[in-house]
């Protein structure tokens, strides 16, 4: 079982390296927030800890973990989307969006 898990880890890390090497510096900040949102997947562990009824301590720790991970999932995906929405190619008339200082 452990060996199988090591396989998964090594192969996933390899895929990660190959994919992420090709991300241009232009999108490095969205990349960080995206991986951050994805790492909120630790929710699947936290939810089990919070809901398995293994005593008060486990439930309390699990609850805090659920809050933290959910914050990352929600905030992470939202901010990534907000950033990616800003990247535009076409120069366009943006008089309405110009923020005056």
């Amino acid at each position, binding site marked *: 079982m452990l060996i199988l898990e090591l396989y998964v*880890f090594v192969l*996933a*890390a390899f895929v*990660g*390296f190959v*994919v*992420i090497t*090709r*991300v*241009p*510096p*232009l*999108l*490095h*900040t969205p*990349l*960080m*927030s*995206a*991986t*951050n*949102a*994805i*790492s*909120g*997947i630790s*929710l*699947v562990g*936290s*939810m*089990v*800890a*919070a*809901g*398995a*009824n*293994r005593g008060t301590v*486990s439930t309390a*720790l699990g*609850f*805090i973990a659920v*809050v*933290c991970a*959910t*914050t*990352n*999932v*929600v*905030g*992470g995906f939202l*901010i*990534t*989307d*907000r950033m990616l*929405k*800003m990247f*535009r*190619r076409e120069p366009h008339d943006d008089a309405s969006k*110009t923020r005056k*200082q």
Partner: protein
Amino acid sequence: MRETITQLTYLAASILFILGLRSLTRPDKARRGMQLAAVGMLLALCGTLMNHQIVDYRWIAGGLVLGTIIGYPLGMWVPTTALPQRIAMSLSFGALAATLVGVAEYYSAFHGGEGHIGAAKMTAIGFEVLLGSLTVTGALIAAGKLQEWVPSQPMTYRGQNLVNFAMFAAALVLFAMVVLDPTRSTAFYTMIGLAALLGVLMVMPIGGADMPVVVALLNSYCGLAAAATGFALGNSILIICGALDGASGFLLAILMSKAMNRSFANVLFGAFGGETAAAAVGGGSALPVRSVSAEDAAIQLAYAQRVIIVPGYGMAVAQAQHAVRELAELIEKRGGEVKYAIHPVAGRMPGHMNVLLAEANVPYDKLYDMDEINSEFPQTDVALVIGANDVVNPAAREDKSSPIYGMPILDVDHAKSVIVLKRGMAAGFAGIENALFHAPATSMLFGDAKSSLTKLVSEVKSA
């Protein structure tokens, strides 16, 4: 049956996550890809809710609601200038979640659980809480430094590295003790405390400008902690995501330290800008500086055919990105061509400048990486440097005695003329004299970047 469905949702989520990350290689496809990744996350969560171990949904629901309430403003309302500290904060949250799950797993094994943890699982839990708690405090300090709640200067004292190393060694000894005999709970909790303290001590001595590397590295640790959670719980999606996160953070950290021509070890233990650089400043400068008025600078810009704008952290601090775009559009309207040159470590996190400029409606095909644009400076009429210093210092290319010698820089000094927007003659983060500011082709426009740019805009308009 339920177990199979759960696993299938995890598999689907893993695929969507990887496709989401791959979509980030193309700016026009990225948004769609990440939305699909969010769908994947939703799938995985629904799959988890079917887990037979879960008997009580109240705390889960409460946590999901509270997390959403906290997460929404962190996603929607944080200004782009505050992105680095925002990301550092969320690294801290993520690591805290991993650490707490590890502690819960350990605690419940001996309180009502099996009363025993195997060596393999204990090793995984150990890594999880060690990396986790180190990242929790480290990322908090990094966020504090970026927000300037904690002084961003490096804080050093004699024997610092020795102390940190001794603490790290102690934590490892405790780790080994717990793996050999998991009932040693004092050792377990002391290890967590030590790692948390180590996180503080390791990030404290690192200066603000080195934060891109630190944040990327903490990102990597956070991912590895999540992967360790996956090993502890026997959950493959956690392992996969942790590995992706870890790989991404590690890769970015390598890229960033390469862009500063420094090794990890140097960033983490060097406390750059401390004692060594102080000596370099000592020389003082009696070199001439040519100051220029906004009017003259505006005329230069108004009649330039090719302009390259070089933004730095100063632009972010002054929130001048909108004024920059306005100026660029004016120059373009008059027939000039404007490009932006982005140094990999400009700003306080990887890619920070790109997001700021994109927010100000600068089309991303005008943003160029260092390697793409360096050859174009000799044909450039005016290079406009806004709040950047060390990344345009020719000493990195020429002066072997300079602390930043060898760092790849933007060859701004090759441009026909250079206008530098700067608050005053203070040295940059590295505390090094910048020959660019004294070059005959360079004129300095002193003042706050935003008000200087506003003046330039109105002057170019009337030119």
